[in-house]
């Protein structure tokens, strides 16, 4: 069949080739998209999905073990447990909110100082000096029977410190 034949059949007619070519092209696109979806599934972080059921709870210790106005490091749980002057608890992620370096607690200066770009945070995780754009992330603290427990399965972002973040016994 020639192109001339197609014309005689009117504008609404689609030739067999004209019908199949875009369909085959579309199928090719679909195949490509399928591959991308499969690849995305391979790349998705697995840790969260598997552990969401059995949540990671770190048993930090009895409430009285932590003095007010002190910070205790939990390297295994990758967090700091801060007890504020009023006795409230905060579990602070140890990753700097700027570029993800690990921030050490400087006890004499009473501040976290990032070694990478010298961002500084106070005991509540609030930014004392930039470039860090927001306070240190938090983990959920629970106090059950005077035992402090921290849920490290998921960190929570915040834009500023407020009193509701503090957990009291």
């Amino acid at each position, binding site marked *: 069949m020639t192109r001339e034949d197609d014309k005689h059949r009117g504008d609404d007619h689609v030739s067999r080739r004209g019908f199949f070519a875009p369909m085959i092209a579309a199928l090719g696109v679909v195949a490509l998209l399928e591959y991308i979806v499969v690849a995305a599934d391979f790349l998705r972080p*697995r*840790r969260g999905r598997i552990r969401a059921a059995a949540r990671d709870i770190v048993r930090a210790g009895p409430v009285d073990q932590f003095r007010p106005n002190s910070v205790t490091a939990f390297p295994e749980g990758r967090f700091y447990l801060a007890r504020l002057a009023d006795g409230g608890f905060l579990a602070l992620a140890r990753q700097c909110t700027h570029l993800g370096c690990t921030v050490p607690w400087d006890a004499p200066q009473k501040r976290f100082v990032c070694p990478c770009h010298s961002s500084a945070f106070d005991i509540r995780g609030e930014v004392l000096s930039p470039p860090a754009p927001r306070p240190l992330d938090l983990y959920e603290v629970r106090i059950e029977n005077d035992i402090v427990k921290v849920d490290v399965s998921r960190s929570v972002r915040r834009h500023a410190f407020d009193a509701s973040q503090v957990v009291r016994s």
Partner: protein
Amino acid sequence: MSSGERGDQRTSLAARIRRSLVRGPLLPRDDRQRKRIIIETLILHFRPVWVPAKTIRYTHTFGLGGMSLVLFLLLAATGILMLFVYEPSPDAAYGSIVALEEEIRFGPLVRGIHYWSANLLVIIMVLHMLRVYLTGGYLGPRQFNWVIGLTLLLFVLLSNLTGYLLPWDQLSYWATTIVLGMIGYLPLAGEPLAGAIRGGEQVGAATLVRFYAFHTTVGPLILISLMAWHFWRVRQARGVVIPRAPGEAHDERPDRVLMVPNLLLREFCLALVLIATVMVMSLFFTAPLGEAANPGMSPNPARAPWYFAGFQELLMHFHPVFAVLVIPALAVIGLLFIPYVRYERDTSGIFMMSVQGRRLGLIAVLGAGIITPFLIVADEYWIDFSAWLPGASPMLSEGLVPAALAAILPAAVYITLRRARRVANNEAIQAMVIVLMTAFAVLTAAGAFFRGPGMALAWPWSL
């Protein structure tokens, strides 16, 4: 039965096997045989058969593209060897590199060659890009090859970055953490993207496997495909751009010489010199290996690899959205569209476009080379927009305002030059591109060599 088959029966087995492999003579004696060899050999047929005689002069191209290929081959050869030793898991990776360094006879040499080739490759490719830009090689039929070349550079950077993590020492662990932190700043897609690359909340086993897969499979595959395309398009454009003096017309029928042996022999000599240089470098300067990665302790200072130090330096001066998205995106878009601007003159083949273009270019290099360090120091010690503009959002005071002020410099160059009657848009754009490239080179040097503890400015010799 044909005469050929009858002839086979009389020749030896070895001769018959050889003839089944290569039909012609192994060493060509005349131009007809040489031409045949170029066309019939798989590797050689990627190259042009005839090349313009003027283009094989060394100082026209400095052989930078060919050098990049040689470095890639060195990387492949040494990388394949290391694949047999390396174990891509956080527990075993560092130990396997130590074993490579201490127990395998030529281990340090092989790793050294890989390390130096990778770093040289970035430098040589940037110089190659500069050469193509300054000789107008991105114009005319070679426009899209400029785009392929930029893509090659992108994938070489990604390959370098992914390879950087594999030794799993303090240096590589924290450099990767910082680069992924930079990606996390991209608006909307940043955190999911960084998470997908990292495979978890922090750099760990999943990150290592991902980087290993990219570095050893995806990256090389893409690079080989793009290289074949890149070389093939050079052939389609009948070789590289032909050099000409300012004011000289295009030579419609340039003298051409056969690629074999004229160009190939020159390239072969250059390859030998380059390989010798890399060997000597690797013998005297071993590839660095720090202490094993410790996710609990960041070293001070923690830096991105030097080829990303320019972006890290931008991050010291601009709001993250500007430092990792707006400015790099504008730069990449600008580079991609360089060949597609409507230029007033055809300057292909003329080094820096014209005598005037050379003069303006020199002023641009010197100007940007002096002003950029001054701006870096000024921003470090005196400029503080967030204090001067109290109440403004950080996006404004640390992003838009400083970025707009920094853009004044190249914009002023362009506008001033366009006002001057005898400057074509080619020359004005070239001056602006040179200003921006110089500024970025200064930023890279500042981030790589002039940042001490706490990322404060410091002299390299005091670190």
